[in-house]
């Protein structure tokens, strides 16, 4: 067992873990952060994407011990003060999810993408999401959602269509 201290979604945790524990299993099993999902064992699908010190990483592709001393943000920590992140709202507004399994990773990666490039072209969005597989949406509406969120975030947080998504997500 190795002792690690990790801050996850703003809360500091100290735990003893087996070195072989993957970060995603630590999040899901030790911390109950089941919003982050596992879709493959070759690091292709991106369902497990979280932010490590503000940058997107695949949490199935690193060990929990490697996160020692670092800060992790999962899909469950993305909303702040009860307000959903514009990317979450845009995914709902643009129907950018169906089964929802790729969604946490897709949203986390989409946020990372906009941080590097607040005004991406469609092609830049598509390439920025190349490490996340989705089998339901055909990506069309995911691209729309990232475009919509980019506009919202550049304009300072207000949603483009203030009524529709807000209504739906409180259902």
């Amino acid at each position, binding site marked *: 067992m190795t002792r690690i201290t990790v801050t996850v979604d703003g809360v500091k945790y100290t735990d003893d873990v*087996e070195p*072989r524990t993957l970060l995603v299993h630590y999040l*899901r099993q030790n911390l109950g*952060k*089941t*919003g*982050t*999902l*596992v*879709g*493959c*064992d*070759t690091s*292709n*699908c991106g*369902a497990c994407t979280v932010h490590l010190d503000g940058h997107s990483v695949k949490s199935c592709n690193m060990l929990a011990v490697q996160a020692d001393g670092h800060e992790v943000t*999962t*899909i*469950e920590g*993305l*909303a702040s003060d009860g307000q*959903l992140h514009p990317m*979450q709202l845009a*995914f*709902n507004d643009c*129907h950018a*999810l*169906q*089964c*929802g*399994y*790729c*969604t*946490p990773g897709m*949203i986390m990666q989409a946020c990372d993408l906009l941080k590097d490039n607040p005004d991406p072209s*469609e092609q830049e*969005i*598509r*390439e920025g*999401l*190349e*490490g*996340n*597989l*989705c*089998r*339901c*949406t*055909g*990506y*069309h*509406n995911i*691209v729309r959602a990232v475009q919509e969120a980019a506009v919202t975030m550049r304009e300072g947080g207000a949603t483009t269509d203030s009524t*529709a*998504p807000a*209504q*739906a*997500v*409180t*259902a």
Partner: protein
Amino acid sequence: MTITENQAPAHEIGRARRRKEDARLITGRSRYTDSITLPGMLHLAMVRSPFAHATIRSISTEAAKAAPGVVSVVTGADIADIQGVNINAWPITTDQVTPTHLPVAIEHVAFAGEIVAVVVARSEAEARDAVELVDVDYDELPVVLDAREALKDEVLAHPDLGTNKSAFWQLDSAAQGSGGDVDEAIEKARTDGILIEREYRQQRLVPGFMEPRSVVVDPTGDQLTVWSATQVPHILRFAIAATMGIPESKLRVIAPDVGGGFGGKLQTTPEEFATIALARRLGKPCKFTETRSEAFVTGHHGRDQYQKLTMAATTDGMITGFKVELIADLGAYVAIVGGGVPVLGAWMFNGIYKIPAYQFNCTTVLTNKPWVDAYRGAGRPEAAFGIERMMDELAGEVGADPLEIREKNWIKHEEFPFTTVSGMTYDSGNYEAATARAKELFDYDGLRREQAERRERNDPVQLGIGVSTFTEMCGLAPSRILGSLNYGAGGWEHASVRMLATGTVEVVTGISPHGQGHVTGFSQIVADRLGVPFEDVEILHGDTAIAPKGMDTYGSRSLVVGGEAVVRAADKVIEKAKVIAAHLLEASADDIEFSGGRFGVKGTDKGLGIAEIAAATFTGHNLPDGIEPSLDADATFDPVNFSFPHGTHLCAMEVDTETGAATMRKYACVDDVGVIINPLLVEGQVHGGLVQGIAQALWEGAVYDENGTLVTGSFVDYTLPSAADTISFITDTTVSPSTTNSLGTKGVGEAGTIASTPAVVNAIVDALRPMGIHDIEMPCTPERVWRAIQGASSRSVDETQRDAAPHFEADQPNQDPSATTGGAK
């Protein structure tokens, strides 16, 4: 108590409502099966055969049993009396050869990945560790992997059966009286018409749902509770009861959040049965979650057909006959509807065309590969591919535009309802309207001009335009027809509508959504029907304790069959409420009109809202004599016919003649899925379907080596497209309401997948046709395209002689030679 008077909502059907389902899923408050943890829960890991065909000589479990955390290690023999059996629900002929499929093999394994022993441990890691300690001694047997080879019966997938041929099934239009004699038409075309003979390969596909399958079993309650990542909780309950000796009433099956299925989760699986058997034996909750690598080798696959197609036509391009000869690879076992899937093509190979003579022949074959069953479209994509590819070949032969050839042969909109040569009656459609709109959106004429220019200047990048004017049959299915086909169940669907005391509504449906958005769409239907706010409708599903009757979700049936059941249950609620309203309003029931959620008395301004009736029913203080204090109602709907969505899909592909790479330039489609409940959901289904169909054409394919090992066994080698590989689509709809259900809906779940594959391949072939190329085998890889251009056959590359690149492989110098991949010796 306080009753809030409901406001009559604006019309809900047709609105682009944002999904109710999303709130949890975008915040990580999901509940997929693998996220369920129960006190004292144990974890299973499977020991799987590395060989595609072998007899099991012995299994030594002692070392594994002694490993840390291990609670139990069992072989198939250990649980022979309690493990049940995997069922085939659709023997397509009475003499179908159907090998027994045990969840945990006992003496014989028939594909690589079959379970031979199960380890149960306190943690998943310990279970996986102990798998490596199980020592299995196999006698390898020769394998048969290719369906055409298998038909020779030289090597048998199951030596005890004596043959690899499972069944032969035929539909002949002359014999059934729905058309002429196809062989006569072929002979006539041979002398004075056009005869086109082609062989197409429908490669084997892996469904690739994003959530790996998982099952949790809790044996500690009065009912055994099973959570499973399944499309079919009701069918699973039936299968468990039928084969494991557990009364159906003692079983509760729950499909919690399910991360996609596409047919791949309509199976009842060995892993489910094994987990149930072990949980019962140990008396402890048990979980099994597959890895993605396991999903690749053990989940059922799709397609895998050889198609021999013969089309007879007049010299000006009128089809006179069409003959279909399929060889369908079932894999090692006949899956739950595995034999029936290719047979579904029987009614669809004639497409939207008026064909005078038709014959469909299907031979199903056993091989030493994983089982094959429904994958998005299930039989219809194979058929649509066959006919739509042949229409382009006919156009090429005649020298006409592929749209003109189609128009010459298709059913005109004024001819509906139309009974086809295969005997199906298409209720509605308008191929002219969808095609006209698609041509406009696509700029068909402009792209044809560009194509001519590129050809003229011998551009290294050639442009091809592909057409697919597909149709499909949805709404599985009229129970009588299923009965006539020897199917083991009905095709009805069930719904309950419960008016709660405070005016909100619970709707219980027997369908089992896993991404489609049914909660939102069904809420819209009920909101309109009952005149209650969209937000006040709750849709309950996917738990046999909550929704005890159902036939689940597959085959684009949920809205067409399940939605209609909901409508009928809601209508019964209204009828019941009307009687109570008349009593409270002191009017005759005949004078009560229901509109916008309000029961009014004709010719007066008197009336009561449905919520008020619900409250009055709840108190029961003042009801008419003999009327029960309940508005709740059930309905079970059995459709009388299928529904027939159609559409015109147009695809432009740029083919780099130097590298063979084919890149999508533009895709426009106009689908007619009948009345649309929610255009946002329809678009989403079309987009996702398109990419799955496009992926069959361009990227996906399960490849086996000569030993029967899946070479494309992970997302590294089985290449699903990402956002960077796809484009934005132009989609639109036309509406020809279906006449088979009161909503006029047709189903949309599979349309995009069925339509797009032939559109893409037709486009690539169209780009290359001037070079004398008339087929590229799928997936149309750059290498196949390049070889075709070089003049070699695209089939000359024998991929069974090739391996995956060794990115992740055990025996590389920089990787550990001592590591093992399982318990195999």
